[in-house]
């Protein structure tokens, strides 16, 4: 409770000295009942505005919506273009939209920008048309620009080259933007990588695009007989007619030369073979997990998604939208929001969308959650989908969703463009003429049974892709049990949506032993490394806001001791006396045995590479690979206890830059990645002064070597004593 009810609350009403004659006649009941919400008056009638329409002789359909509230007007040109798979040239369709306003037969890009902006207007182009808006008085001038970019674009070489550079930068940027990855690769997860809606633009696909593809697409699909011209705002039918005729009346472009191949595909000059979408894809396959690794993520960006055959004209579409509203579509009281945010507090927001689409519909639930609840969030989403299918909805939920949707419908009409959008949708999607006029009536008629039937028809949790962009080290293991795909439970993708694959370049000119020798040479040579003993290293780090110091002593013959302290308080110590080891912490002490002992011995040496044979059962050179933009040799080793160690040595310097250990520690399997940086000399040997470790029990830890001393005198043997009782024979 923030503040208790004030007993004087209602006394304020005594002061009726407010100015204004209006109030003097108003009934002033001092006792108002706050305990229940006021009763609403009769619902206002929602007036759906009307549109007019006519067709130009070239087939272009003109839609006009008059609204004279503000002196603003807009014009949209929209072409009805079916989705086309772009294949190895993915990106050219977007380029059509981006380049449309960068040059025409008579204007340069600068001219176009200038002529629009000096009128205070807007011009937006896309791969299926263009839109301009501004003050009514400026509309004729804006129309001439619109006409030019739609009917006479020149796709200049220079602008094409610039756009390609910009797209390339955008693809680079995407690598670090989890939402952008989720958007691009998430669509591939929904529809598949070869579907027109699922293709992902990459640097490679950009290289395959030429201006002829852009021009070919434009010629083939920007056609008046497939075009709509939509006027909205402070304009009369007469004015619209005049402007439409002047701008587009005489536009009769020739079709580009086309042939049909033996499979029935169009081959368009310039563009090449056009791959239209055949049947829509639907939810199939086992529930599976796809993961894009983004190391260091603060959250996992999640989608639960699948494709659908759901068209806007489907008579179940409205019930499906009601169902989605209750599940996660827009309202705060939706189940996903209430469960994942208001009950569990895992996220800022959880949503779902159910897209009815003429060519291919889809479902997607989306949420961003902190790393350690990634699997739980996915589980809850799947549960909510199942619950919706199995149990349907309550009367209260149905009522709220219907009221909310009716309210949204009314609010959307505040924007005059809505009526125009309705008209355009009616034509494009082949809707009944009174589709929107009867919307509220049809909405009101939706029943609980309709909603449950829609859930059964359009929710497919068993076939969903559970898609995650997040830190693999933090989430991978927990994702495995969520997948029903036993062969590849977690399918890894790169940020382009391509199956993640370590690109290893085979190396023939050296052996793994030579790589190790080169490493020893690089840090100072075998002689110096062998000589380096009796060393004390002090590392510092912070954990959970606390400063931690780790002090390590390396003695002759593999003796090792470490102490971890917070201030003066000893948190943990580890000792290896040459044959036995011990760990002491706040939970007590235990003798280190077997694989852990091997690990303590191995990592308790400054340069175990001097005598690797002692530890390693097998050693192979995997090949060359990029690690953080640097070329490295990958050496894979298996220890006597079957633990695996992968070391990555920088090709140029020979230094080790990364180690990945897969081992069993503290009762569970772990994959620990350690990066070594900032190599500096200690007693004639280069040691890393910054060590970053991830995947261990404490998450990501950055250790800084603060102090490195070669001790003048060796520590006595007792210093490395384990204190363990002698082994009984």
């Amino acid at each position, binding site marked *: 409770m923030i503040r208790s009810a004030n007993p004087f609350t209602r006394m304020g009403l005594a002061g009726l000295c407010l100015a204004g004659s209006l109030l003097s006649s108003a*009934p002033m009941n001092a006792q108002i009942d706050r305990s*229940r919400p006021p009763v609403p008056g009769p619902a206002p009638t929602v007036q759906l505005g009307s549109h007019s329409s006519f067709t130009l002789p070239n087939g272009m359909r003109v839609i006009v919506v008059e609204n004279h509230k503000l002196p603003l007007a807009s014009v949209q040109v929209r072409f009805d273009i079916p989705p086309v798979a772009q294949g190895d040239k993915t990106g050219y369709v977007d380029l059509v939209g981006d380049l449309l306003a960068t040059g025409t037969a008579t204007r340069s890009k600068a001219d176009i920008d200038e002529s629009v902006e000096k009128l205070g207007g807007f011009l937006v182009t896309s791969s299926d048309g263009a839109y301009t808006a501004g003050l009514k008085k400026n509309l004729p001038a804006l129309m001439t620009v619109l006409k030019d970019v739609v009917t006479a674009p020149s796709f200049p070489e220079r602008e094409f080259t610039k756009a390609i550079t910009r797209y390339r930068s955008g693809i680079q940027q995407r690598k670090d933007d989890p939402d952008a990855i989720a958007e691009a690769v998430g669509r591939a997860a929904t529809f598949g990588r070869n579907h027109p809606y699922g293709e992902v633009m990459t640097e490679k696909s950009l290289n395959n695009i030429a201006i002829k593809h852009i021009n070919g697409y434009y010629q083939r699909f920007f056609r008046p007989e497939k075009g709509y011209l939509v006027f909205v705002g402070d304009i009369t039918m007469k004015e619209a007619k005049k402007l439409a005729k002047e701008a587009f009346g005489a536009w009769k472009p020739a079709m580009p030369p086309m042939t049909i191949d033996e499979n029935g595909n169009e081959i368009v000059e310039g563009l090449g073979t056009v791959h239209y979408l055949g049947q829509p894809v639907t939810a199939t396959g086992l529930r599976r997990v796809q993961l894009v690794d983004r190391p260091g993520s603060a959250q996992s960006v999640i989608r639960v998604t699948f494709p659908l055959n759901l068209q806007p004209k489907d008579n179940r579409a409205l019930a499906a939208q009601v169902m989605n509203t209750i599940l996660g579509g827009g309202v705060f009281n939706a189940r996903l929001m209430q469960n994942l945010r208001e009950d569990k507090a895992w996220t800022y927001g959880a949503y779902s969308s159910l897209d009815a689409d003429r060519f291919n519909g889809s479902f997607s639930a989306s949420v961003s959650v902190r790393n350690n609840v990634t699997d739980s969030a996915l589980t809850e989403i799947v549960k909510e989908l199942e619950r919706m299918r199995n149990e349907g909805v309550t009367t209260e939920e149905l009522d709220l969703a219907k009221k909310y949707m009716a309210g949204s419908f009314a609010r959307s009409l505040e924007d005059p463009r809505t009526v125009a959008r309705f008209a355009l949708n009616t034509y494009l999607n082949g809707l009944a003429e009174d589709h929107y006029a009867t919307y509220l009536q049809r909405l009101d008629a939706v029943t609980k049974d309709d909603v449950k039937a829609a859930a059964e028809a359009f929710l497919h949790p068993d076939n969903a892709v559970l898609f995650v962009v997040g830190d693999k080290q933090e989430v991978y293991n927990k994702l495995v049990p969520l997948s029903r795909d036993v062969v590849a439970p977690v399918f890894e993708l790169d940020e382009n949506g391509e199956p993640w694959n370590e690109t290893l370049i085979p190396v023939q000119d050296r052996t793994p032993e030579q790589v190790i020798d080169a490493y020893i040479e690089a840090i100072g040579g075998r002689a110096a490394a062998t000589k380096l003993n009796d060393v004390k290293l002090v590392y510092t780090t912070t954990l959970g806001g606390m400063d931690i110091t780790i002090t390590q002593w390396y003695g002759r013959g593999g003796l090792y001791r470490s102490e971890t302290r917070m201030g003066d308080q000893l948190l943990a110590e580890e000792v290896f006396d040459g044959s036995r080891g011990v760990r002491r912490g706040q939970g007590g002490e235990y003798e280190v045995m077997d694989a852990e002992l091997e690990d303590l011995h191995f990592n308790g040496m400054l340069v175990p590479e001097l005598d690797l044979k002692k530890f390693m059962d097998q050693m192979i050179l995997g090949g060359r690979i990029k690690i953080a933009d640097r070329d490295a040799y990958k050496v894979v080793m298996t220890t006597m206890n079957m633990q695996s160690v992968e070391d990555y040595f920088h090709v140029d310097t020979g230094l080790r830059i990364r180690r990945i250990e897969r081992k069993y520690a503290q009762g569970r399997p772990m994959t620990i990645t350690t990066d070594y940086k900032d*190599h500096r000399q200690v007693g004639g040997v280069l040691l890393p002064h910054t060590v970053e470790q991830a995947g261990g029990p404490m998450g990501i830890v950055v250790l800084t070597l603060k102090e490195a001393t070669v001790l003048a005198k060796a520590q006595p043997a007792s210093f490395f004593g384990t204190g363990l009782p002698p082994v009984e024979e």
Partner: protein
Amino acid sequence: MRHLTFIPLATMLAAPVAAQTRAINYTEFDLENGLHVILHEDHSTPIVAVSVMYHVGSKNEEKDRRGFAHFFEHLLFEGSENIGRGEFSKYVERAGGVLNANTTGDRTYYYEVLPSNQLELGLWLESERMLHAKVDQKGVDTQREVVKEERRQRYENQPYGTILIEVLKRAYTEHPYQWPTIGFMEDLNAASEADYKAFYKKFYIPNNAVLVVAGDIDPAQAKVLVFKYFSGIPKGEPVKQPMAVEPPLEKEVRDIIYDRIQLPAVVQGYRIPANGTPDFYAVEMVNRLLSNGNASRLNRSLKDEQQKAVYTGAFSLPFEHPGLAILYAIANAGVDAKDLERAMDAELHRIQKEGVGAEEFAKLLAQLETEAIQDNSRVAGVAGNLATAHMLLGNTALVNKELERYLALTPADLQRAAQTYFSTDRRVVLHYLPMNQKPQ
């Protein structure tokens, strides 16, 4: 005499502008408890916006409770003496409405947009929030975690997501604008029940708020209803706004931020006058000159001609106390941050030295004119503009005068603003660089 020829030109271009803008009608009055009320009547669509703006934002926070105002905004959806946890939003959505809120450095703003027959519901809800809001422990614990996730989602997990946080902390040393509205997790953890009570008592009072009702209403009836629900709410102690005076930046503050990004970015922060002052509008126009539209200076020069940037931006933080203008650009692949910064500075210097021609100035006015009309095309937007004009600009009438304020400026004002406020010797400059460029 000669320069006079320019002035009529600007005025001429501007003259029809004022004639075209439709004024927003409104009436306003105060309740006895100090609540300021503004009513706006528009019957175009049968909907009504009910909103309350409280004069409390992150600048009213204690130094060790950064983020509290925004956190508190979350808590005030939890319920009241008469509204159970989670019911607040249910009432609105069941009535076919939407609701939300947002917080800035200066104020916290709550609103509902409802079918017009539900006006009374909106007033009941907002008066409950003002009179006796209520939060239980579950609500506090939940919303604290929700806000942390908001921070992760919108700042920490986004490339360049920390720009505002990093600029603010270097641009201010005295004023509470130095911390971001989203705040810091450790401070949110430290907040206790005593904090909530004190904060509510201090700031959520009628004499620190403005109520706006806009849309399909009968103003006389609305006035009665407002009186019914709000006049009984007791007045609180007058709120003292923080008076921290920030000394001017004496030099350039320069830093490098390593982020999980691929393309470097250059961010510049300049201290500017408070929102509503004549020079604030001049600075706004400089921002527009720099990066509003394809033909703007930075976009044309850096993106189009030199191809050094993939994105440029210039905007002001419209603070009640002297705020900031932030200029930024994201480098094209292969372009160095230093090189990008030189190109940005060159454009600034060009304005400072050569000023702005009459034609380009007229373009800015034309853009402003269109936007001013669009800005008030929805009742929810009108409600927000009215509340802001009254509370932060100190005069509701300014809602109809914004364009006039711009029209009062001359090209010479822009040049002077560029010289005065966009000084390359006194600013914050941050280079955002990819993590892998961090020295080993």
